[in-house]
């Protein structure tokens, strides 16, 4: 199947180095301390953050830092065929672990000992790149909750089909069986926290694809900064400053 036609357009009309449209909205869940909705094309994800609050399970309390918990679930209606189990299957467990460890690396946990920060991420519409959208949404939600972080964490995926590196794969391109590289970076520090890859790639091609994904992450970081600035202006306005 042809994923990049001779004119250089992909199945949804994008160029190989073009990302899908980004949309973000802060404060979607009123009850949560911080929340955000993040959309990358057709993929829509909602994240809610509760914390820092008292640790619910005393035995898990850590004395010198905050405990970070994360739960990733996909809504039943998020994919084409109705999903039977939204969470608890292996993929969701692994992604929860991955998101938790990624966010934990950037949250300044030592400033909030003996407390707990919960991150809940739910996928409302899945069209490829759910992992990246979840991390971006979690970053926004954590910023909205006012939790101190070292840097934003942004994530993007890239692939390699028809001998072309492609940025931000959607579901059809992802399930084509080609390699899928998901990268999460700390943009200001220029460090890679999350890196996952499946399917085979020679090492030099991998370097190009990873570089492309990092560029995508930086573009998302710029967008997230704009959204946060806009949000802060709104808050100032409401306070009458």
């Amino acid at each position, binding site marked *: 199947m042809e994923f990049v036609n001779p004119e250089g357009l992909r199945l949804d009309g994008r160029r190989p180095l073009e990302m899908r449209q980004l949309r973000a909205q802060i404060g979607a869940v009123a009850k949560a301390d911080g929340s955000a909705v993040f959309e990358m094309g057709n993929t829509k994800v909602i994240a809610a953050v509760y914390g820092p609050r008292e640790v619910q399970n005393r035995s898990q309390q850590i004395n010198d830092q905050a405990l970070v918990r994360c739960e990733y679930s996909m809504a039943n209606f998020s994919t084409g065929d109705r999903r039977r189990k939204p969470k608890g299957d292996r993929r969701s467990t692994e992604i929860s672990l*991955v998101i938790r460890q990624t966010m934990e*690396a950037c949250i300044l946990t030592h400033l909030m000992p003996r407390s707990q920060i919960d991150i809940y991420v739910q996928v409302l519409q899945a069209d490829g790149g759910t992992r990246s959208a979840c991390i971006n949404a979690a970053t926004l939600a954590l910023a909205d909750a006012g939790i101190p972080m070292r840097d934003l964490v942004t994530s993007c995926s890239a692939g390699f089909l028809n001998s072309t590196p492609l940025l931000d794969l959607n579901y059809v391109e992802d399930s084509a069986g080609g390699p899928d590289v998901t990268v999460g970076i700390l943009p200001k520090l220029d460090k*890679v926290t999350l890196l*996952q890859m499946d399917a085979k790639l020679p090492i030099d091609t991998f370097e190009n694809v990873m570089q492309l994904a990092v560029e995508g992450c930086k573009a998302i970081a710029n967008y997230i900064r704009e959204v946060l600035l806009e949000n802060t202006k709104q808050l100032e306005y409401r306070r009458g400053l």
Partner: protein
Amino acid sequence: MDGRLANRWRLTVNEKKFIETALASNLRIDGRNPLEYRKIIIKFGREDGSSEVQLGQTHVMGFVTGQLVQPYQDRQNEGMLLIFTEFSPMADPSFDPGHPGESAVELGRIVDRGLRDSRAVDTESLCVLSGKLVWAIRIDLHIVDNGGNLIDAANIAALAALLTFRRQECTLGGDDGQEVIVHPPEEREPLPLIVHHLPVAITFAFLGSEGKLVVDPTHSEEAVMAGRLIATVNANGDICAIQKAGGEGVPQSAIMHCLKLASMCAISITKKINSAVEAYSTERALRKIKRHPTVAGIVSVAGSDVKEQNKTVEQVGGSELSRHHIERLKVVSEETCSSRSNDNDGDIKSSEQGGTSRGESKAMNFLGGPSNWVLIMIP
């Protein structure tokens, strides 16, 4: 997550500082270099498809079984590959019995990604009847002892078990050619799986604040590490999978450095696996030799692959002994074994077809050199 916390409790601040300070002078607490791998010992059980891997103190067992099932809806003509992990509580006090924890799921998925997405095991050859029956290969990984770096050890165990697994041969038969007949191992020799390449997982740990790199972390190093990168590479220089699930941020150059190191480690590990599997296959073939009491009383048995030869003998004679057939085999070296056995089959068949023509015994005596020959004399 409880496992992670339990691990953290056990290590004191002093131990943590000691490990980090020692690394500053490129020393690890078990005396290795930062880029040195532990000794790998691969053993096999009596059954086909069972392996046992020891990586230092880490001990993992792998078992492969096969079953005929219905294929998935969206993959009608491909077989299935299923991986199950069992983190036994005897391996580590932080493992709970029953439902697998996060690290168990992560291990299973990393091994799965390395094998499935990189097309290491050929799933299309596992299809028997498209849309109706395919082989489901199930790999069970049991962690017996946790000495650190379970993922690499489990991966090697899975690969070793897959290479020595034999599935029963099945043919289509019946009235309409739609019935599947599974042949038991006594009837037809079971077939090995088609494995295109060996994806080997190499784990790197980042320790300390400046992210010092070590290969193959032990249990205590894992408790101290800030981040971990697992690179699954094969001996051809392809990267099959990468997993860096958060943790300390590292620059891109460090990641490329890790991948290059991983390629080098993978070559030596692949060699070890292949040699262990070959030694096992030879030993397995040796076990299958049937001894025949001969007329002339000359028997020297040190065997090579005789299964097919026995069959042809039986087909001709019905009873293999006391007839006029004398088989004499001599094996000198293992390397010639597998390569020459094919020639032997050809020899025997032609000599059988020669039937009662006498004297056409292949009396090629290669004395003084590695030889592998079969002598059938029909007086």
